[in-house]
């Protein structure tokens, strides 16, 4: 047998193109600024002042607002004062609700992370430092707008008042889990909360959100859709399919890119951040693009509100980049000290979203340190009590799961013969084995 071609090109003496008097080509492979052992230094990071960005009309043409895809919408300044045209001027009640939901999300994450470490479940993912992204947005949407989240927006469920014990049952994969123990922990689904079933496969939710929004528009509904993915996930084809559909049909959808700068061990440069911003992806599609300080809950709220009003006015979709930082490891399976500087998180200049909102509330005179500390204690207890309750329904691997035969349910609406047969065979075999 002979092949008409071998693989000889390009690496031995006979380099193709040699003989031409041209400089050799070079491959650029991105490299993050800091690696383990380096001291993170963000002094050259130019923080745009709060309040400096213009706020266009909700019906503005995408071409008139391109600057916003490269800037950074910020509302809270260094002193925690809300400034500028994007200030949403929220009532005290909303601010405190927002603060509480963020603090609860953090307490929940702490508890569930610990539960995984104690062997009570297989896996967990925190959203530390990114609480504003999901909670600011959730509170700016109507409660019946449909969310298509990734795995790091547990804050949406918490902001929508979903019972945390239900989330814990899912995490423990126990007999109280409405999803029947079928999904990896944190892959929630809560239709009643307008929260789509989370997929383990990245960015699949993006075109789905656009489809939901198109359906809503086609039916003359008033509800809009919102979706989230990480900056790393914008590389997937689904992201680009979603943008194209959203643009073509002017779908009433908000597409959020949570730029926490890391995708497991890969920094945002591997998703294109060395070349441009993620919000600027919108420009090529003719979509409105906003780049927002993701650690500023008020900026997230304001941008989401702007995009929601725009969608409701049939003025089209918006792509929002939330610039933030992934403070913790990717998941319980990850140790970030192997690939990034240990002090990046503490040096990150946009600060902690909870601390910033707290400062704002204290400055307004509607909050104080004592009340905050009391709230943290109360939430820690609440989460602990809920976890104990949930654990009564079982923890992973300790027998209190849904019945074995339930494995065959919901593959189809009606169980076909082959699944019935497999179900029966399984039960017979286990019985025969005395189990």
């Amino acid at each position, binding site marked *: 047998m*002979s092949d008409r071609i071998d*693989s000889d090109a390009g690496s031995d003496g006979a380099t193709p193109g040699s003989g031409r008097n041209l400089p050799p080509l070079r491959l650029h492979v991105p490299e993050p600024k800091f690696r383990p052992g380096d001291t993170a230094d963000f002094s050259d990071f130019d923080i745009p002042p709060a309040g400096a960005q213009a706020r266009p009309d909700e019906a503005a043409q995408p071409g008139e607002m391109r600057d916003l895809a490269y800037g950074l919408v910020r509302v809270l300044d260094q002193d925690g004062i809300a400034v500028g045209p994007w200030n949403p001027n929220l009532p005290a009640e909303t601010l405190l609700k927002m603060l509480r939901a963020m603090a609860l999300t953090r307490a929940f994450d702490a508890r569930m992370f610990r539960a995984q470490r104690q062997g009570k479940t297989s896996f967990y993912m925190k959203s530390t430092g990114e609480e504003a992204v999901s909670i600011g947005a959730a509170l700016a949407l109507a409660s019946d707008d449909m969310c298509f989240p990734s795995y790091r927006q547990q804050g949406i469920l918490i902001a929508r008042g979903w019972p945390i014990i239900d989330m814990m049952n899912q995490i423990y994969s126990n007999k109280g889990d409405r999803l029947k123990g079928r999904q990896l922990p944190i892959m929630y689904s809560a239709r009643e909360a307008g929260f789509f079933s989370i997929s383990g496969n990245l960015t699949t939710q993006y075109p789905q959100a656009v489809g939901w929004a198109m359906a809503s528009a086609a039916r003359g509904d008033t509800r809009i859709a919102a979706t989230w993915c990480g900056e790393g996930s914008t590389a997937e084809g689904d992201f680009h399919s979603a943008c194209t559909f959203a643009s073509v049909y002017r779908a009433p959808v908000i597409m959020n890119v949570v730029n926490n700068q890391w995708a497991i061990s890969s920094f945002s440069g591997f998703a294109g951040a060395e070349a441009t911003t993620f919000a600027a992806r919108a420009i090529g599609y003719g979509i409105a693009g906003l780049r927002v300080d993701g650690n500023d809950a008020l900026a997230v709220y304001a941008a989401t509100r702007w995009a929601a009003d725009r969608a409701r006015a049939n003025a089209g979709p918006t792509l929002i980049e939330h610039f933030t930082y992934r403070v913790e490891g990717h998941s319980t399976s990850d140790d970030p000290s192997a690939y990034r500087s240990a002090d990046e998180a503490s040096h990150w200049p946009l600060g902690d979203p909870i601390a910033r909102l707290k400062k704002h509330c204290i400055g307004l005179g509607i909050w104080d340190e004592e009340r905050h500390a009391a709230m943290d204690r109360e939430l820690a207890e609440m989460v602990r009590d809920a976890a104990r309750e949930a654990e009564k329904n079982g923890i992973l691997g300790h027998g209190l799961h849904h019945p074995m035969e339930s494995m065959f349910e919901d593959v189809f609406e009606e169980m076909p013969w082959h699944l019935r047969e497999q179900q029966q065979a399984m039960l017979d075999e286990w019985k025969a084995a005395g189990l």
Partner: protein
Amino acid sequence: MEGGGPVSEANEPKAKVASKATEPEVVTDIQQMNMIQAINSALDVMMGRDPDVVVMGEDVGYFGGVFRATAGLQQKYGKNRVFDTPITECGIIGVAVGMGAYGLRPVPEIQFADYIYPALDQLVSEAARLRYRSAGEFISPMTVRSPFGGGIFGGQTHSQSPEGIFTHVSGVKTVIPATPYDAKGLLIAAIEDNDPTIFFEPKRIYNGPFDGHYDTPAKSWAGHDQAQVPTGYYRVPLGEARVARAGQALTVLCYGTMVHVVENTVAEMGVDAEILDLRTLVPLDIEAIERSVRKTGRCLIVHEATRTSGFGAELVAQVQERCFYHLEAPIERVTGFDTPYPHSLEWAYFPGPVRIREAINKILKD
């Protein structure tokens, strides 16, 4: 069209040269390795021998892969040859097709087999058919490495066994090792092979063979004879099965993790089974299968993948077509159920000792 390739020699008919690797060196040193180390060693050996070999994928570069299979390679061979990629599996495989067209020999990693689906078009319509549609003018010599299979509580998106999707496609080879020794030798053979190869790594046995008893402490590869791995170059040829256990009572066809589960179950039962570790599904070692089934007259097929249209169905057909008059009992299959991989019921789903034992008893009763 005359001369589609980038180099003029490309149009010269050539003897089949698998790769630009230098001649095999003499193997001297043997080391105890787990499967990750063996895979890492195969990549290291091939990168050292063949400058066209490049390794790419999500998190494979600086970090060395989420399972550490590519650890140290970027430091050793540089970022031009070992690099992280954007998170787009379709992009990774498409780029690997292009690099192959240039003349490189890419070894892309898909982080989990469950994430290979976005790459299907590039694999099925492109890599698998490039040689055919260009009548050999272009080839796609990539080896796609990807951890697969269950047993680590990964839920439905970190547990699947999609090998049957690829064995169904003409033009790709499918390889699944069951031991560190084979993982290295087969990976080297796959990289040297000029056709696109899917190399599924059973992640449950990365760190140790698995006997099927999830409730007993995990074993390591230490002391296992198949974990004695030469540090240098060697090949385990594609298309050759391994007799994991010789026997007379029945033939068990299996691969990957299930080889160890079967070995242990057979030992517990005291049955004189012949266990064939298929190692390569396409091209299949049909002679080894025929030889064994004609000898034993009984055949069990075990795989973790779902049942309907699973690779076991193909094996049943082959055995039936070739060994019908030697069979003394109906062929049995033990497989994953036709459901997604459930998280909490992982061990009820996994085709473990209980089900294998039942099937063997049934086959031997007839």
